[in-house]
C-alpha cells in the first residue's frame, strides 16, 4: 500500500504536471489543426462548385430571363414599329442563333445541378419558350409587307396574339425562372 502511494506521488511531480499540460496543448492544437484543415477543404470545394457550376448557371439563367424579356420587346416592336428593321433582324438573330447557343450552354451545365426538379423545371422553360417563339414566328410571317400592316384583320390578329399569347407566356416563363 505504501509502495503504491509512493508511485502515485512520483507521477504527480511538477515536471510530470508540466509535461501533461504540454501534451494536452499539443493534442488540442492537433484537433484544431484537423478541424481547420477539413473546414478549409470544404470551403475550397464550395468555392470550386460555385465558380464551376453555381455562378455560371446563375449567369446563364439571368441571361435567359433577359432573352425572354428582350424577345417580348422585339416582337412587340415588330407589330407596332413597321419600319424598325434593326429590331426585326435582332429578333431573327435571337431565334436562330442567340437562343440555340444559350440553350446549349445551359444544357451543358444542367448535369452539374444537384436537384432533378431544377433540371425538370429548366426543361419546362425550354419547351414554353420554344412554344412562345413559334407564336412569334407566326406573327412575323403574317406581318411582312406594307400591305400586311395595312390589312386591318391581319394587324388586329397580330396585336391580339401579342396581348393574349405572348405577354402572358413571357410572364409565365419569367415566373418559372425567377
Amino acid at each position: 500500500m505504501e509502495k503504491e502511494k509512493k508511485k502515485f506521488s512520483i507521477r504527480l511531480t511538477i515536471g510530470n504536471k508540466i509535461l501533461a499540460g504540454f501534451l494536452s496543448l499539443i493534442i488540442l492544437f492537433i484537433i484544431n489543426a484537423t478541424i481547420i484543415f477539413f473546414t478549409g477543404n470544404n470551403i475550397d470545394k464550395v468555392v470550386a462548385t460555385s465558380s464551376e457550376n453555381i455562378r455560371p448557371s446563375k449567369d446563364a439563367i439571368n441571361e435567359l430571363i433577359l432573352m425572354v424579356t428582350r424577345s417580348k420587346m422585339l416582337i412587340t416592336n415588330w407589330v407596332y414599329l413597321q419600319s424598325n428593321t434593326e429590331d426585326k433582324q435582332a429578333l431573327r438573330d435571337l431565334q436562330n442563333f442567340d437562343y440555340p447557343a444559350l440553350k446549349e450552354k445551359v444544357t451543358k451545365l444542367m448535369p452539374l445541378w444537384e436537384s432533378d426538379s431544377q433540371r425538370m423545371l429548366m426543361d419546362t422553360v425550354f419547351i414554353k419558350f420554344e412554344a412562345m417563339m413559334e407564336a412569334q414566328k407566326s406573327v412575323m410571317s403574317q406581318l411582312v409587307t406594307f400591305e400586311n400592316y395595312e390589312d386591318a384583320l391581319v394587324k388586329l390578329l397580330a396585336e391580339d396574339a401579342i396581348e393574349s399569347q405572348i405577354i402572358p407566356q413571357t410572364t409565365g416563363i419569367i415566373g418559372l425562372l425567377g
Partner: protein
Amino acid sequence: MIMEWLIILFLFAIQPILRHSKSMRKAGFLSILLLASVVAHAQTYKQHPLFIYSFTRYIQWPDAYNEEDFEILVLGDSPILEELKAMAQAKKIGDRIIKVTKINTTAEIRKCNVLFLPVDQSGKHTEVLQKVGVQSILVITEQPGLGASGSCINFITKDGKLAFELNQAALTKQNLKASSEITRLAIMI
C-alpha cells in the same frame, strides 16, 4: 372558301347513299344546303369578336362608362351572340368583365358600352340611333350604307375580307374618342 370545298368533298363522299332513292337524294341535298347555310352564316362572325375587342382597346369612353362591367348589347337573335359570349369568357378589358346581353326590342336599349345591330335588324337603325341619342354607346352595324347613316362603326366586306367603316362625326356625337391606330386601319367616313 375552305368550307365550300369541304361541302363538295362531303357531297362526293356520300354520293353512293344519295343514289339509293329519289326521296333520299332530295332530303340529303336539302339537309346539306341547310348545313351549308348554317355553317356559312356562323363562319361570318368568327372575326367580329376580334375586331370588337380591338375597338375596346382603341376607343375611349367617358369615365362614367368605365365604372361597371363592359356591356355589349345585341339586338335580336344573331349567331354573333355565341361568338361574343365565347370572347367574353376568354377575355377581360383591364379588370372589367365583358357582359354580353341579348335585347329583343329597341325599348330595352339602356346605358352600355357597345350596341350591336345585326344585319337582319338594320331596318331599326334610325329607331336605334334615336333611342341611343347622345349616350356614349358605340353603335356597330353590318349593313352597307349604315356607316354614313350615323353608325359609329359599320362592318363591310372589302375585297372578300372583313373591314370596317368608322364614322368620326358619330363618334364625336357619342363623346367617344378613337386612337390613330384604329383610324389608320378603318375606312373613314
